[in-house]
């Protein structure tokens, strides 16, 4: 009886140890996965703070110059109307004979000062972040626009995160090249890594939008 008890105790210990080992392994795998995410679901306040960081990037000239409400893009840190009679065109890519890619190639042209990235074009009018007087929309308005799936090409949180992380025209904003005179174009207030991290926090918090303008 004592031997049976000892044997049972031994097997129980082995089983318990095996379960503990499995649990630890699973936690490590999940932990590695979670390492990409915040350690806990961000609060709404944390999400709103992250949104304000995102907003500061979206409204920087490197981004907002192509998110216009008008028939034209903008240029420069002063966001003046794009020179040379450049207009939006029906698909946001200019018009036949005067497309965006007539000048803007697949990467920055450092010798001539023309910025470039794959598929250079305007954002659709549904993603305008300015009004018709070129005035930047409020944080509330931009947030609501960005999270409206009827306007944002049906992107949910994961889609928005991927867009901020991988879209070539978004990436360009953080490596915008130099002007013809060799001076560097100004950068958004966050690095791309910080921008993606803020987006991740905002998405994990449920993409909250501020209540007041």
């Amino acid at each position: 009886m004592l031997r049976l008890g000892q044997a049972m105790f031994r097997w129980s210990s082995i089983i318990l140890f095996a379960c503990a080992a499995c649990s630890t392994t699973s936690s490590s795998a999940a932990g590695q996965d979670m390492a990409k995410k915040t350690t806990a679901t961000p609060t709404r306040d944390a999400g709103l703070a992250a949104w304000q960081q995102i907003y500061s990037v979206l409204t920087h000239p490197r981004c907002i110059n192509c998110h216009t409400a008008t028939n034209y893009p903008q240029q420069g840190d002063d966001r003046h109307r794009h020179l040379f009679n450049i207009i939006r065109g029906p698909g946001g890519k200019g018009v036949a004979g005067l497309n965006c890619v007539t000048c803007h190639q697949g990467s920055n042209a450092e010798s001539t000062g023309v910025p470039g990235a794959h598929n250079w074009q305007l954002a659709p009018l549904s993603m305008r972040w300015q009004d018709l007087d070129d005035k930047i929309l409020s944080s509330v308005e931009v947030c609501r626009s960005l999270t409206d799936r009827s306007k944002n090409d049906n992107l949910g949180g994961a889609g928005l995160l991927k867009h901020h992380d991988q879209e070539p025209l978004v990436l360009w904003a953080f490596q915008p090249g130099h002007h013809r005179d060799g001076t560097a174009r100004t950068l958004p207030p966050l690095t791309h890594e910080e921008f993606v991290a803020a987006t991740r926090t905002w998405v994990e918090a449920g993409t909250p939008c501020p209540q007041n303008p």
Partner: protein
Amino acid sequence: MEAFKLTVNGQAKEVTVDPGTPLLWVLREDLKMTGTKYGCGIAACGACTVHVAGIATRSCVVPVSLVGDRPIVTIEGIGQDSVGRAVQDAWVSEDVVQCGYCQSGQIMGAVALLKSLPRPTDAHIEEAMGGNLCRCGTYVRIRQAIKTASQQLK
């Protein structure tokens, strides 16, 4: 300096230039194809317009290093297809040209427009050609010639 293989008007060409050299100067100085003109150097006037992979392109601001294997068509070769020929014929029949300096770019722009929009309205013409400047003011005849070419292509 770097070697670049280009396809210009259907012919293979090879040049050795600084990678930042604008395509305009490769065409004019290295390949001695002077039909494409320098007007401003900042893509403002359209005199340097060529076609790269069928898209009207301002060659004064595109470094040769960014062309890749995309085929280039210049004013010297635009008559090789029916739209190019129709535009050239219309330019002659409507007596468009005065000094002629901008007209290479005007023709290249007009061909790109008609290939995309065979029946352009006045508004389409104004939008598409609005970036091609003419100091002689031949705009009225340019517009008419585009309409004439469009009719010929029906």
